[in-house]
């Protein structure tokens, strides 16, 4: 902020002098001044983005070509770190786990979020109340969500087991987070609980931009509930759903906090998503080069996935 105001002022003063005096015929100069003003106003964002997003990413990519302790040992190893990853079973497992995890959470969020949005969009009474309640988990810090679910999943004193046992559905407590077959689903459920409200809000906003005339026209064509959904709602929601899918996939593919606090990647690596893999490599084992290479692989995967989405969803349109 401080950096931009002194530079903006001379330009502003210049405008004040010249604008009232000459009426017309100064379009080129005006547009040049506009360009300068636009650049000046966007300068702080540009600087922060370059210094604290673009540069660190370039640095991280560079790091992936080194064997280093980040202090005094910098050995250029080319693509060795990547080559090592292709032979590293724990890395390959964690990528597979991340795909499964992200697919579960994104699908859950999209389905639940879209259903809730459509129900809320019917304009029934008490909608505001339901909307506020259903959005609440979005506000909860991920740490709080993780703790709350860890407590409810607690095998001995947790809510789920005590309710299931007192209802007579199970007689043995279920080890939700300690059973390798259950843990990923249990973690995904907690993440969906946290994640669906954002999808709901965005889809709801998308639904509200659909003109009612389209539904009336569909009614005249004797379209049923499914017909309206298939031929009016879905096409109109396509841009919103595309944006949501791209962002959601990127967010959950790199998700760390809830999984880390619920299971720390266990049991036996069943929930070892790639963010936890990177965190462990870097901050537990101090293999900075390997960790950076893993992060680059994640970046490439998220970029590829968003590219694929755009191809698929845009092709549907034709």
């Amino acid at each position: 902020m401080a950096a931009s105001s002194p530079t903006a002022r001379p330009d502003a003063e210049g405008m004040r002098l010249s604008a009232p005096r000459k009426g017309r015929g100064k379009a080129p100069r005006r547009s040049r001044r506009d360009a300068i003003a636009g650049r000046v106003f966007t300068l702080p964002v540009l600087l922060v983005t370059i210094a604290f997003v673009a540069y660190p990413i370039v640095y991280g990519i560079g790091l992936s070509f080194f064997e280093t302790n980040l202090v005094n040992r910098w050995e250029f190893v080319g693509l060795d770190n990547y080559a090592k990853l292709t032979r590293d079973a724990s890395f390959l497992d964690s990528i597979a786990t991340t795909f499964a995890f992200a697919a579960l959470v994104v699908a859950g969020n999209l389905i639940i979020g879209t259903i809730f949005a459509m129900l809320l969009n019917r304009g029934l009474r008490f909608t505001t109340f339901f909307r506020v309640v259903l959005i609440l988990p979005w506000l909860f810090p991920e740490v709080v969500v993780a703790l709350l679910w860890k407590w409810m999943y607690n095998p001995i004193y947790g809510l789920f087991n005590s309710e299931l046992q007192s209802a007579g559905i199970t007689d043995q407590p279920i080890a939700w987070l300690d059973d390798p077959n259950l843990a990923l689903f249990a973690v995904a459920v907690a993440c969906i609980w946290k994640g669906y409200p954002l999808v709901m809000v965005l889809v709801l906003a998308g639904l509200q931009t659909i003109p009612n005339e389209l539904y009336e026209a569909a009614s005249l064509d004797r379209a049923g509930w499914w017909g309206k959904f298939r031929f009016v709602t879905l096409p109109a929601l396509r841009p919103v759903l595309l944006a949501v899918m791209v962002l959601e996939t990127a967010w959950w593919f790199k998700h760390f906090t809830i999984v880390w606090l619920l299971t720390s990647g266990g049991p036996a690596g069943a929930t070892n998503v790639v963010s936890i893999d990177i965190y462990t490599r870097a901050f537990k084992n101090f293999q900075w080069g390997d960790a950076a290479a893993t992060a680059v692989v994640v970046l490439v995967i998220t970029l590829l996935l968003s590219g694929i989405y755009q191809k698929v969803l845009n092709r549907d349109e034709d």
Partner: protein
Amino acid sequence: MKTRKPAAATVATYAVLVISSLGVLVPVGWMLSTALKSGEELFSQDAHWIPLNPTFAAFTRVFTDYPFATYFGNSLLVVGASTVIAIAFASFAGYGISRFQFKGRGTLMGFLLLTQLFPSIMLLIPYFKLFQGFGLIDTQAALIIAYVSFQLPLCTWMMVGYFRSIPTELDQASEVDGAGRLRTFWQIVLPLATPGVAATAIYAFITGWNEYLFALVLTSSEDKKTVPVGIGQLIGQYRIEWNDLMAASLYALVPLTLIFVFLQRRIISGMTAGAVK
């Protein structure tokens, strides 16, 4: 049209909405019930909803037995400062992008959106190294810088959306009156965008208030930790005091929930303005 909707569909809608709301309210109620229980009641085999001897002791213990007052102070400082900076920068950029034609405008917007695809964990190692180089590890300045760079991309998008919705005729009128661009921004356009600024600020605040991973890595001493890190580290302990934990969690989410319940229309329209238009 609404009156013609079949009653069965309405009943089904209400049924789904009520059951899903319970899916949110039951865990929250369980959190409250846990926080009100005493230690020994907590570790009894049959869990009941209404505490036998409800006590607020956990809510005071959070501040007497744990340094949560410090954590809260740190969170407020770090998130407050980063939100103010992010909003200031985002408003400038929103005004610049919505009002002036210049080359690279679209590229900048595209790049800001692209940053959302970058795994934040990828920034973590470079940040750690860079902040180490500047002696900023374990300082609040490091967290403020990190949070500004997280908040900025989406805040800028939201502010651009808001400024676009304000007609440019007002700018032109102000210019004819002899005001410079900075004054037009400050006295005409920004006041009109106040609802948008508020919504964006709340969004930025929530983003920062909830952040965990970077605070975990970039701070280490007790007097620098934020609320999420403070709560998160209690879970690693040998014997987890669930009532204290749930009380601390409730403290962490009550401010946000209150803000949200009162301002929800504004926040939701703010969040979606950039996404849909």
